[in-house]
């Protein structure tokens, strides 16, 4: 069997891959729906936008479910602390996501304008709110989550929902919202035409500019803002089964969360990738080059998520009130056997998911025009 230490690293990478897969695929669902009421002026345009993702959105959501499932199986402590701690934030995401499947199915069933408009805004909320909340949650990881573990490893969360909405985390929320909106806009550029495509290009450009500014602001805030980063005070044995409470964590403001970037300079590739992606997206969307814009926004997403992951490593959930309770990928992890079994399962099923997903995109590719919507108005979403 593979060594425990290596398995822990494999699962840190795999959860990252699932999160990136989620942001790349479900990201354009959420982004394009958040933009839909703004870029789609007529009913046909809005329907065209909806029909670009309607056959794919639940397939894309598999990445989200798998990431949640992998979190539960690989890092059960992180799952329980995050989900019961940030309970109301999670419910907010859940309720916003409820609006998507019903929105897609109900919207075009009746021809009433008021009915359709209400569902359009429902779909917009279902895209924008999760995109914002995920960013806010990530932002709070850098600040630390107010929880502590008791001797039975049960977590006690002492924060409130509104404490999550602090300025730093809100800027992180704008980063993720603008990132996914730019990605959704680039998706609409790929799959639609005429006025809708032009407006989507404009939206992609604006969103990529907002992303670039906020991403740099967050970087500067972490670098100059004396924000404390977390690190181990005493080295641990990464190959052992560790109790999260049996460690000593220190916080320091210099170099703070930038520590990994100075220790391992190769990790600087991640923020460079995010910035480069944003610049490509801004220029390509101004020239209405759909494929290049989508490449740019995809690089942006990969870069931004890796940037956060590298900065936090090996921490997953830093605790602001009791740093020794912080959870890391060395100690909040499942047993050696569990990780081994999961690795075998992942080797079989992740390629399977990739194959059927690519096949369904291949079969349903193409530009959706207003004419196509109007001639199939009773069978499309």
């Amino acid at each position, binding site marked *: 069997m593979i060594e425990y230490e290596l398995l822990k690293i494999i699962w840190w990478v795999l959860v990252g891959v699932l999160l990136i897969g989620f942001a790349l695929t479900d990201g354009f669902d959420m982004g394009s729906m958040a933009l839909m009421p703004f870029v789609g002026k007529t009913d046909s345009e809005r329907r065209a936008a909806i029909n670009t993702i309607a056959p794919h959105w639940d397939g894309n959501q598999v990445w989200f479910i798998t990431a949640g499932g992998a979190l539960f199986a690989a890092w059960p402590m992180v799952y*329980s602390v995050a989900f*019961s701690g940030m*309970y*109301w934030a999670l*419910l907010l995401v859940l*309720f916003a996501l*409820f609006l998507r499947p*019903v929105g897609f199915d*109900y919207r075009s*069933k*009746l*021809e009433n304008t008021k009915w359709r408009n209400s569902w359009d805004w429902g779909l917009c909320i279902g895209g924008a709110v999760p995109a914002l909340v995920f960013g806010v949650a990530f932002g709070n990881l850098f600040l630390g989550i107010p929880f502590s573990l008791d001797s*039975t490893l*049960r*977590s*006690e*969360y002492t924060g409130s929902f509104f404490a999550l909405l602090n300025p730093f985390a809100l800027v992180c929320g704008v980063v993720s919202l603008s990132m996914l909106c730019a990605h959704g806009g680039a998706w609409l550029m790929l799959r639609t035409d005429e006025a809708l495509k032009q407006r989507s290009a404009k939206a992609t450009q604006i969103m990529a500019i907002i992303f670039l500014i906020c991403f740099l602001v967050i970087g500067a805030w972490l670098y100059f803002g004396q924000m404390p980063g977390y690190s181990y005070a005493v080295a641990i044995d990464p190959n052992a089964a560790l109790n999260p409470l049996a460690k000593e964590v220190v916080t320091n403001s210099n170099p703070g969360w930038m520590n990994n970037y100075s220790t391992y300079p190769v990790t600087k590739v991640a923020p460079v990738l995010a910035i480069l992606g944003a610049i490509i997206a801004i220029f390509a969307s101004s020239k209405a080059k759909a494929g290049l814009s989508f490449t740019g926004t995809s690089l942006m997403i990969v870069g931004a998520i890796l940037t956060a992951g590298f900065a936090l490593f090996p921490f997953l959930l830093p605790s602001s009130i009791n740093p020794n309770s912080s959870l890391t990928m060395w100690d909040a992890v499942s047993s050696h056997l569990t990780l081994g079994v999961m690795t075998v399962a992942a080797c079989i099923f992740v390629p399977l998911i990739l194959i059927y997903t690519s096949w369904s995109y291949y079969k349903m590719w193409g530009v959706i025009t207003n004419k196509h919507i109007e001639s199939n108005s*009773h*069978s499309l979403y």
Partner: protein
Amino acid sequence: MLLLFILATWAVAKRNAENKPWLLKYALFALPLPWIAAQTGWYVAEGGRQPWSIGEILPTHLSTSSLSTGDVWGSIIALAAFYTALLIIEMYLMIKFARLGPSSLHTGKYHFEKQEPKATANGEALS
């Protein structure tokens, strides 16, 4: 429920389900059965295992979260309200489209579309 599955499989294989009104009625009134089965199964499994969450490994009082009673009530009420609203919308659409039948697809192949326009006038406005 199992009996219904067997009878329905048989009728579908023979392609004569539409000639057996008693089977169709049976299927209609059996709609709540899977829900009842799921609920009772849940009570038996969860109730019977108490006081453990994972039999003889993790006791329930250690496996619960530290959420307050208010948090749990709040989320139950919110979920119930949301699903009730969806149920009302769903029922409205289901009844509307069940009345229209497959002719709501406007393919020109189905029952109402082959009759005189007078027959469709009885139904609601076609979508």
